[in-house]
């Protein structure tokens, strides 16, 4: 009995899919059809969904019969509501895709979009020549990072800027590459934090 119950529900779902009418009308019709089908099953002891198809008809035909009985203005209204809902869903999805695209662009800009400027870097096996200073830019032309080197090639100073060009972190290094001082700044340019590191003796 459970098997035919499931088949009956699938049958009713098929009818529902093809029905164009108001939601309340759809609900009432489907419920009443369900009752009729189960009355038929009780009376005939049908166990095969094919019996239902034979007696009641194909879902599309039933839906068509019902639609032909509904007043045209009700069908038109249901179609209109359907179109409005569909248009709304498309608008929401399109807006979401546009916003997502904007954020993806922004993310890509941060990840792979800086231009290196300063004296050219030549890497030739063991013979490396590092620039005396190095400026890294965001794609929009704002400075991202400014690095000054010691003559021995170790980093002397490094300034890191946010996308609006405001200095965020200023780090000063010892000649051996260890951090000497680090200053972080607030958005308004005032000092947020300053750390001086003790040098090992």
């Amino acid at each position, binding site marked *: 009995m459970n098997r035919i119950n499931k088949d009956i529900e699938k049958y009713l779902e098929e*009818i529902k899919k093809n029905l164009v009418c108001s939601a309340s*009308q759809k609900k*009432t*019709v489907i419920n*009443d*059809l369900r*009752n*009729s089908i*189960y*009355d*038929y099953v*009780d009376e005939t002891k049908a166990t095969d969904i094919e019996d239902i198809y034979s007696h*009641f*008809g194909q879902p599309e035909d*039933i*839906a068509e*019969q*019902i639609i*032909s*009985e*509904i007043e045209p203005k009700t069908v038109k209204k249901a179609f209109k509501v359907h179109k409005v809902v569909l248009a709304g869903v498309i608008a929401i999805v399109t807006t979401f895709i546009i916003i997502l695209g904007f954020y993806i662009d922004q993310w890509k800009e941060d990840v792979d979009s800086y231009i290196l400027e300063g004296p050219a870097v030549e890497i030739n096996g063991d013979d490396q020549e590092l620039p005396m200073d190095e400026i890294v830019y965001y794609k929009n032309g704002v400075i991202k990072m400014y690095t000054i080197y010691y003559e021995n090639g170790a980093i002397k100073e490094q300034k890191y800027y946010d996308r609006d060009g405001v200095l965020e972190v200023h780090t000063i290094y010892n000649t051996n590459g260890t951090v000497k001082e680090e200053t972080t700044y607030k958005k308004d340019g005032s000092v947020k934090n300053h750390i001086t590191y003790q040098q090992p003796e």
Partner: protein
Amino acid sequence: MSQSQENFKRGCTEILALHLLCKEDLYGYQITQLFNEKSGGRFTMLEGTLYLILYKLEEAGYLSTYTELVGKKRTRKYYHIEPAGREYLKKLLAEYDEVSKGIALILDREVEADEPNK
């Protein structure tokens, strides 16, 4: 079943359903079964179509409905004809008689002699 037969049936369904309900309260499937049995299989109607007609009659106040429990979980919706429905049926039957006589006359079939409709 041809389209013309379907159209004709649709027109008759209100009269037939109301007539059956004059005798006793019935549920949807029962009405379609009675159509089939009493007509000798000549008048069959899909449940979907019948329900829409019954809803219209209910909306107009000619029928009312109530539900009864069937078994443990299922409920069954019964249709009951209201006094307004009985009046409406009388009107429909009078119209049907007139139209039938008119058709029979056109078709040169024998009809009971009576006053022509003014």
